[in-house]
């Protein structure tokens, strides 16, 4: 190749690089995060657990943010300051046990705190549901969500996959089981505000994941298993159920509808739902 111009000296590069790290990463990162908080951020929280999850998220954000800024500022400074120049030598210093111990124990202490906080919230998310919680079943399938209410008798009827008929009997309810006679099957989930709800998650075919962003709820629906979660919705409104586990070509259209309403509104809706075995669901 033709003779290239001599490379810039180390000090200049060091200054440029240090400035880039500080400007783009430290300043840019912080500014962008602050801007993002108004544009692309957590949806307003609408469940009881969600508040605790958010608190933990923000705590983690602050801690990691401080480390992010601090380490990058240090890196930027060293790069800016210690470019080679003249004939001086680097400092003879390559081991310091106290320093090593410090930056073992300090991160450890921070992480232990975060783990403890996380453990508390996790155990609350997975604690036993309150006794007054209602139960419904939600089943993921390619590509949608179907919910089942147990009806006035409060018991779910038996279901058999062989009986599944997409139009007439999407859940596969056994007509011979009296407990299933009053089960309600619907594609739109209705919940009562401030009332705990237990959801038994199933899948008809592959793994899906039941994700309601506003509630900070997510649980994989695994075929062959029934997994139960519970939560308390705290704000009325219309919400979306998203699928958060790749489930096939229609993964992106698996949007489910969920409505949180007052007890009265819920009762009115509920009274209008026919038993599943009498009619196909709306």
């Amino acid at each position, binding site marked *: 190749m033709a003779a290239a111009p001599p490379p810039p000296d180390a000090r200049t590069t060091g200054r440029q690089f240090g400035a880039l790290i500080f400007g783009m990463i430290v300043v840019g990162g912080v500014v962008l995060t602050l801007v993002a908080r108004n544009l692309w*951020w*957590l949806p307003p929280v609408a469940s009881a657990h969600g508040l605790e999850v958010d608190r933990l998220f923000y705590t983690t954000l602050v801690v990691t943010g401080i480390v992010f800024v601090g380490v990058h500022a240090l890196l930027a400074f060293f790069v800016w300051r210690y470019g080679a120049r003249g004939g001086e030598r680097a400092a003879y210093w390559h081991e310091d046990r106290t320093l090593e111990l410090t930056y*073992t124990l300090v991160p450890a202490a921070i992480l232990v705190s975060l783990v403890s906080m996380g453990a508390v919230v996790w155990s609350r998310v997975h604690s036993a549901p309150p006794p007054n919680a209602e139960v419904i079943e939600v089943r993921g399938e*390619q590509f949608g969500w179907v919910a089942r209410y147990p009806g006035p008798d409060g018991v779910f009827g038996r279901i058999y*996959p062989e009986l599944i008929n997409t139009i007439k009997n999407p859940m596969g309810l056994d007509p011979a089981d009296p407990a299933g006679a009053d089960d309600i099957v619907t594609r739109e989930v209705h919940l009562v505000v401030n009332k705990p709800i237990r959801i038994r998650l199933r899948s008809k*075919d*592959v793994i899906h994941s039941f994700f309601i962003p506003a509630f900070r709820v997510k649980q994989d629906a695994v075929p062959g298993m029934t997994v139960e979660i519970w939560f308390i919705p705290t704000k009325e409104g219309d919400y979306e159920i*998203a699928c958060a586990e790749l489930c*096939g070509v229609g993964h992106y259209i698996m949007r489910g509808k969920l409505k949180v309403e007052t007890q009265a509104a819920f009762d009115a809706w509920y009274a209008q739902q026919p038993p599943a075995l009498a009619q196909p669901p709306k």
Partner: protein
Amino acid sequence: MTITHHEVHADHQLSFVRRYIFSQDHKIIGIQYLMTSFVMALVGGLLAMLIRLQVGFPGARWPLAGLLFPGGFSGGAIKPDFYLSVVTMHGTIMIFFVLTTSLSGGFGNFLIPLQIGARDMAFPFLNMLSYWLYPPAILILLASFFVAGGAPNSGWTAYVPLSALKEAAPGSGLGQTLWLIALAMLIVAFLFGSLNYITTIFQMRTRGMSMMRMPLTIWAMFVTAILMLLAFPVLFAAVIMLLFDRLAGTSFFVPSGLVVGGQLISHSGGNPLLWQHLFWFLGHPEVYVLILPPMGIVSEILATQARKPIFGYRYMVGSMVAIAGLSFLVWGHHMYVSGMHPLVGAAFMATTLVIAIPSAIKTFNWVATLWRARIRFSPAMLFAIGFVSLFVTGGLTGIFLGSPPVDIYLHDTYFVVAHFHFVMASAALFGLFAGTYHWFPKMFGRMMDERLGRIHFWLTFVGIYATFFPMHFAGVAGMMRRIYSTSLYAHLQGLGVLNMFISLAAFGLGLAQLIFAYNFLVSLFRGQKAEANPWEATTLEWQTSSPPPHGNFGDTLPTVYRWPYDYSVPDAPRDYIPQTVPPTPLPVQGGAGDPGAQ
């Protein structure tokens, strides 16, 4: 150790095929791995551009791309199943066929014998065999694009039942089978390689090269090889069982009562979570397989170009070993919301956050290495320092994901995608670039162009932050992974501008890599001739010619008298002392070392 006259000539009598194609010389094999990985990186990168085309500009039409991929586009728009194939293959290729092969296969092979003072690996024939499983695996993998149903649609993670049942997705037909076979072949290649590396490092270190005098690059390759040896067989077992479930009707993973595509599936009794446990038992150590070699490489380059010993050598070794050991205990953090028992999740939370500690130690040691250093900003050094930044950013977002309650929200969103692109696609990639710029002169006897290297660095560093930092916000807003379009979800409607920006940054990032490709290829033929030790480095590979001769070190193997980081030693005549320099000059009668002759 003397090489006989006969043996030197024997090498010259090998045919071109035996010398360069079916070579048993570790240097050639290392270069073969590296070059093949670069080609696969182009393929994987192209697939990434397709992903960003769709995510950044959903609904747009691309007639030109439609011409290139006739089966995957319809009316100029990418089809949803092809989109998932692209996502699956992008991940598979980048993780297994680029990063693992280039870092362990490429640099491991090239550097291990040179840096420990050996003439070649312990088993050169096995080494050749290991490489030659790689191209056939590539062909089988890429063939999946061309069979009925296309390449797999189940992601690089291939969760069951989506990957087990051909009725569940078009790509779950023959394409998935080919994918599994290709992966199995590559796993065998990795196992052969690990066997070789471990044996070589145990057996063939030269006189004076104790374990604690090995360069950190070698420690990294050594620990990585042990990790691969113990973790990959688990994925191999899972692949075999999935092939049986797919082709022979067994039910290791497929449960009963599934109705797919209107049909009742006859499998019964399997458990999909078993696949996940087996997969992630490999999958998590795998990410450390990807990051440990770059950590070693970066430590090496930081010390060399900062003219300062790496800070805390012993703690660096200890933390690498700790990371490797702990990596076997954290796999469940990929499965917090999988249906696994919550107490198990809590246990994994504890181990996951513990593994952050040795990583923190290493990071601070790298930063401390720069303090009062005398930094030479070669392209390799720029990428090495860039690695530290990327590893910090990516590692910190891992703390969010390591906590199960926070992970409830962030699991399977773009926050995860941003996290692993920072640690893998960015940090590990920077290790690859840094290593290439640093050892190119040794491999090919020529220098890469420094100016182009710097330009490549600036554009890539900025481009990577521009592409992947905003991705975190898409995840915080709740954007799920692997979705073809966000159009259906109200909570994702504000992300259009963000995704478009990320795509544009990604295109720029992709284009910037062409500078590297050009620099690499042209320097092979027209680069300035390299001397033996252009970086004035201490390790053994720099004490022989560039490129090294067959047998690496000429007539006698080097003897090592010191550790690899004697940079800027006070009172030394130069600012570096190679490992081969004795602690005191040997006394020669009448010479400088003879006290009687003064």
